[in-house]
């Protein structure tokens, strides 16, 4: 019997395959293709305090083995989200990880209070890879002080049981240092990685292709960056659970991230290319683990770190 379950701090999930924030709509869109209870959890798009239009279009550009996006956290705001999206997910019996994003350090506190005690919500992913409007739009997680402040604000408002997962940007000189900072600030787990800052120039208009100029690079192109970040962070914080993501489209890809140290896997961009990508990853990863003689998923987590003669 294969035990596919995984633990993210206090939370147990029947399997480690999740959607990635911002890549699964409200859940309804995918439920036509598979039952949401089939996966470990659905991670919601990052929700903010107020309704947000997001960025102007064009918002996306395909790149070699990847894409850029500058959606800009379009969303209905926390009120409508709790009124519409969450009840629907609850009605489906889906396990929910709510992703929250703030424009200020205080926003995180307010959002945390709104989402901390909801049925079916098994974790809070704190997206701190977004711009801090109080500090020249600098990304919270790119600086230890603001990363820490945002997570402390969430920690102060959330009790012990619900895992707080800090989602980090890879666009930093030393991601292991930022990881330590947010774990010290109270994060129970980490989500690695958010998109990598990139730009595409349209050679016909001869201007940046995205209205917003820069955007976030995702997809298989960034997988080696994700594997490296997960490996580095797992090495320095072996006990902190990591939700790994970045270019996972197959079971082999997921296995790479798991071996590097991820206790769960979010599938993002791959869903755009294949609505059933999450299910494909789930099935393929299980088969690969069985082939390799694992009987517990958790034994594979970080297995690439074992000593040379292990």
């Amino acid at each position, binding site marked *: 019997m294969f035990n596919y379950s995984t633990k993210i701090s206090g939370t147990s999930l029947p399997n480690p395959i999740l959607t990635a924030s*911002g*890549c*699964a*709509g409200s859940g*309804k*869109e*995918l*439920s*036509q*293709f598979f039952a949401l209870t089939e996966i470990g959890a659905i991670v919601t798009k990052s929700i903010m305090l107020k*309704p*947000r*239009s*997001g*960025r*102007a*279009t*064009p*918002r*996306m550009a*395909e790149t*070699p*083995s*990847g*894409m850029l*996006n500058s*959606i800009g956290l*379009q*969303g*209905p*705001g926390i009120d409508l989200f709790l009124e519409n999206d969450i009840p629907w997910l609850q009605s489906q019996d889906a396990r929910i990880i709510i992703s929250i994003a703030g424009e200020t350090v205080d926003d995180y506190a307010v959002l945390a209070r709104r989402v901390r005690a909801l049925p079916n919500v098994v974790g809070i992913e704190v997206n701190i890879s977004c711009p801090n409007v109080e500090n020249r739009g600098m990304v919270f997680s790119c600086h230890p002080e603001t990363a820490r402040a945002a997570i402390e604000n969430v920690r102060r408002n959330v009790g012990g049981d619900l895992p707080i997962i800090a989602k980090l940007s890879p666009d930093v000189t030393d991601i292991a240092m930022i990881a330590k900072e947010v774990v010290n600030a109270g994060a129970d787990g980490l989500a690695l990685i958010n998109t990598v800052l990139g730009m595409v120039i349209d050679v016909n208009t001869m201007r940046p292709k995205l*209205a917003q100029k820069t955007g976030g690079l995702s*997809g*298989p192109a960034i997988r080696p960056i994700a594997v490296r970040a997960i490996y580095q962070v797992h090495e320095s914080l072996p006990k902190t659970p990591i939700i790994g993501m970045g270019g996972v*489209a197959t079971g082999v890809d997921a296995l790479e991230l798991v071996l590097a140290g991820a206790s769960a896997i979010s599938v993002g*961009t*791959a*869903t*755009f*290319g*294949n*609505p*059933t990508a999450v299910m494909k990853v789930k099935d393929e990863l299980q088969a690969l683990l069985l082939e390799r003689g694992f009987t517990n998923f958790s034994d594979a987590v970080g297995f690439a770190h074992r000593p040379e003669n292990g």
Partner: protein
Amino acid sequence: MSAINPRALQTSAEVLSNKKVGAYHHMVFAVDGLAQNARPGNFVAIAVGGEASSLVLRRAFAIYRSSDKGSAGGVIELVIAPHGQGSKWLASREVHDHVDMVGPLGTSFGIPTEPVRALLVGGGYGSAPLFGLAEVLKSRGCRVDMVLGASTAGKIYAPLEGKRSVSSMTLTTDDGSVGIEGKVSDALPQLITENESEIIYSCGPMAMLKAIQEIADKYKLVHQASVEESMACGIGVCMTCVVPIRREDGIVRMTRTCIDGPVMDGASVVWDSNRKIPEGTWGA
């Protein structure tokens, strides 16, 4: 079953035929059940580039015709303009090749309950979904006039069998190589007046749709426009394909054209929003 993408299936579609027609490829696919629920205006999303592809996103294609009768089972026909890497790859598939297809997706053209006098306007391969629409309208007793425009003759897709259902067919080309020299929008006022059109259905580039909306406003006509925004997923999960839509509550919201479109009420679209967000716009 979900309220979103309720009829969508994912299938490995087999190429049954691939013929070059002018600047386009007319392609026929065996799609099993996928054809069953397709309505004029719906589209399919196809994975491109094969096994080792660097192209990670699906490409959307309007359904030209569909049928779930016949010996081949469900069949979908598309009109492909070989443009960039994805469409060129698709257009070079051969008979018996398979492609991964999801559909039918998106909204379809609204069919009036009473017979009306409809004007169908297509730009380039935008004519594709209009022929299926014309058939349905005609079967409901509507008069159907059609105007198709393109930069040049080879880029007008207007197959003979498609013309069966239309009462009149007008062509325009930028270079005058066939039909009237000019834009489709130049031809509209006269056609509306002559044919006493009551509703406009359109499909084509955004600039064309915008010009049609201005005419529709002037003549106070309903305008159902099939818009074309860059789509990463086609199924509503990525939020890349949005246009600002003024909803019934008066609030403008960035709205997904893959779910609430591609066919949208032209009057609700805040046109000319490329690279800017209209004041006071909300999220979805």
